[in-house]
């Protein structure tokens, strides 16, 4: 049996004696007889560390790690600099709790303050929170920020949004008894004419994703004008890498900007933990859920940082809180901050530009292999192809060559993704393989 209990059996006995008790069972006298476990749990015997390691090696070996990855659809394969991993693994950052005791938590508080600033810089917004669970919950929490007491409060979501994000928005809305309507897609982007006819001032908000799920770039300014005309809140879900080179949602008039920050230094990790960010305007500050760190001074007048505006939060306001959220994704936010500091603005732009360039090169080359672009829209680092070739045949062929192809959408359509991680050489190889299908 493995154990992390510190006290020896002898010390345990000493403590029991000191408390006037004979055995562990005496500690549990309040547990009703019917409930107290007689034979313990039906679990395997505990394992020594070496056995646990072997067991996990076996499990890990049963997963296929592809050397070349061309799949995105919400989880992106970007390079993670070594210094990011080295710093983020510092035990202080890993093992601390939420920084309630500010005097001995300045390191974490300052890191959050820096993260908030970086998110403001990326999005162009005025304030950002300390992070939330992921991009999808960020989107859902953003819609919840927009409910207004006396409205019908329908939430409008573009159909070009990542389907998982749509589902999470719907689920949160189910909780709040709020209606969700999808605004249809046309030519690979949000159908702006449909939006105009659907939305009115009974709506609470409109959510659109940039670049959208199909990889295409939405006309955020035009959409924003439609939304604001009926005085509805405008939420943009943005890929943080794309924010380095595309017009900021703030410039397009967004009231709230959210997104999935996994691309900023977090591994694919079979889907989590990832990192949601939320940014908004000063005006909506007090509606923002989640932790916020603010600057203040200590009794000596020294600059210091502290969790602030807690009046929004559950442990103060209980059922009147703006959300039930307690945890942020602090460690993930730290990773993203270190990533952004390591890349700098130039480096982040380079990641974005290379991803775009590789995706466009891939698309062009794939067209030579008979896979043509489905949409005629500007796109970022993802795009959809259609082809006479069978999707599964393509995937199988690529998998045999250690390549994870794009996401199969159906028998003929594939959602591809390329990033700075994909070399010309491997793209050429992929295309050759596809040609051979």
């Amino acid at each position: 049996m493995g154990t992390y209990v510190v006290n020896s059996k002898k010390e345990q006995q000493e403590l029991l004696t000191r408390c006037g008790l004979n055995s562990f069972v005496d500690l549990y006298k309040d547990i009703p007889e019917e409930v107290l476990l007689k034979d313990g749990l039906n679990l395997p015997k505990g394992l020594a560390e070496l056995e646990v390691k072997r067991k996990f090696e076996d499990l890990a070996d049963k997963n296929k790690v592809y050397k070349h990855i061309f799949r995105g659809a919400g989880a992106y394969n970007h390079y993670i600099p070594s210094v990011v991993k080295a710093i983020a693994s510092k035990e202080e950052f890993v093992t601390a709790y939420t920084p309630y005791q500010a005097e001995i938590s300045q390191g974490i508080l300052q890191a959050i303050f820096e993260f908030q600033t970086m998110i403001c810089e990326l999005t162009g917004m005025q304030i950002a929170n300390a992070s939330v669970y992921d991009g999808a919950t960020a989107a859902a929490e953003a819609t919840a920020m927009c409910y207004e007491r006396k409205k019908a409060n329908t939430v409008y979501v573009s159909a070009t949004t990542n389907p998982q994000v749509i589902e999470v928005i719907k689920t949160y809305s189910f909780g709040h008894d709020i209606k969700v309507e999808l605004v249809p897609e046309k030519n690979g982007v949000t159908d702006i004419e449909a939006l105009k006819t659907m939305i009115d001032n009974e709506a609470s908000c409109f959510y659109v994703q940039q670049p959208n799920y199909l990889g295409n770039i939405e006309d955020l300014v035009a959409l924003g004008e439609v939304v604001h005309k009926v005085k509805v809140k405008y939420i943009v879900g943005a890929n943080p890498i794309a924010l380095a080179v595309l017009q900021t949602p703030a410039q397009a008039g967004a009231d709230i900007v959210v997104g999935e920050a996994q691309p900023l230094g977090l591994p694919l990790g079979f889907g989590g933990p990832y990192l949601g960010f939320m940014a908004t305007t000063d005006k909506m500050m007090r509606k923002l859920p989640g932790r916020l760190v603010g600057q203040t001074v200590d009794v000596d007048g020294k600059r210091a940082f502290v969790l602030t505006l807690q009046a929004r939060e559950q442990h103060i306001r209980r059922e009147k809180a703006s959300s039930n959220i307690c945890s942020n994704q602090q460690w993930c936010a730290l990773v993203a901050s270190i990533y952004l500091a390591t890349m700098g603005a130039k480096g982040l732009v380079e990641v974005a530009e290379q991803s775009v360039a590789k995706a466009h090169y891939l698309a062009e080359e794939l067209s030579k292999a008979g896979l043509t672009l489905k949409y005629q829209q500007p796109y970022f680092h993802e795009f959809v192809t259609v082809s006479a070739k069978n999707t599964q045949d393509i995937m199988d062929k690529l998998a045999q060559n250690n390549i994870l192809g794009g996401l199969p959408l159906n028998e003929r359509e594939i959602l591809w993704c390329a990033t700075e991680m994909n070399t010309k050489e491997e793209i050429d190889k992929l295309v050759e393989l596809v040609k051979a299908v």
Partner: protein
Amino acid sequence: MNLIFEQSTQNHQCSILPPCDVPKVELPTKRQETLNLPELSENEISRHYTQLAENVHGVNNGFYPLGSCTMKYNPKIDEEVASFNGFTNIHPLQDTKTVQGALEAISLANDYLCEITGMDKMTFQPAAGAHGEFSGLLLIKAYHKSRNDEKRHKIIVPDSAHGTNPASASMVNYDVISVPSSSDGCVDIEALKAVLAKEGENIAGLMLTNPNTVGIFDKNILEITKLIHDVGGLCYYDGANLNAVMGWARPGDMGFDVVHLNLHKTFATPHGGGGPGSGPIGCKAFLQEFLPGYQVVQKDDYFDLVRYEKSYGMVKEFYGHFLVVLKALAYIMTLGKEGIGEASANAVLNANYMKHELSDTFNMAYDGICMHEFVMSLEQLKHDYNVSALDVAKAMLDYGIHPPTMYFPLIVHEALMVEPTETEGKAQMDEAIKIYKEIYKTAIENPDIMHEMPLNTVVRRLDEVLAARKPILRYQAE
């Protein structure tokens, strides 16, 4: 400490990416605003964060008895196995036949946690405890809805509950009925009965943590859950305090229908300075079909992902905090059948030891055997010497130990809530006990100095009012 932005120098940089090997492409709608990210060399980045880390107190730095947070030691092997390439570099949308190891791990975690909680099925999408509460309440909501029993929109929460409980209820549009605690800290059964008599048909359910937030196991638990069931409600178990009883009693056996767990408390995954946590929920078989997200099911030797037809949706992307779940799984495998119960018993024993040793100096909010944590009330000290729970907590910072939780639960005045966990030894606890008593002595002999403490931390007490009144939430260059 300078902010990283203040240390930025133009054109300082790291050399990460090779030049692009394909033609660059112009996009429309280019960014027009300057992107002000800090510019630093690798050495400068390394030093900056090293300095930040020096100003953080983690579990590895010393005693951390933060009540209700279960700050146990985070085993290094759990971190190591979760960092294996075969887990970190798999895409969540890979074909299931290429991720059999990952699915098997989730399946194992499901089986073990079901056994530990007495539930029939777990799901791992919820990202943290509060998220688990939300997800669990949605399960209750989906259940009542499926029976067209939609008038049930009230949920009972004891007044000792975490703030998350009512906040979560609000997120599923339930009204909260607060029931008082009796003088022993447990649910006031008569008050509960009165509520049920009046509101029975409107009751969606009850949310309860047991042991409760004052560290007491509610011995009436079977009666309570039965009362709720009798009026058609469901019982929700807040797993925040499971560390006290795992291996000794199971929420499922106590009559609960839904439970959430905090893997980052009970199952030793690190808190990360505030996350990522992991808050899987478990339920009895009759609720299973409503569970959110994908579930791992085993058919012969093959693990597959399925969505139940009546699933109420998704509460998060993909399959939750997978890498965190792996750490918890490694922890459970390490402890195993006997180790799980041994961990709880020692957590409870340590709390009782500290409570016993401190009770000659501090007033305990409740008498008798406590569970894994106990609450002290400093009301008398505050009254007699004007030294508050806050003052006492802040004084501890000068001794290099983390204070207990302050001012929680709300039903105890000037509360300090101590949870040593099983990963503290007698020597460390004796040291802390000595410090607590020393501080108490100072409080009585020299109350004024208590308002000044801490004296030796990198910053001293903060002006929180200023922070909230004039919020500065981001750095802006002068």
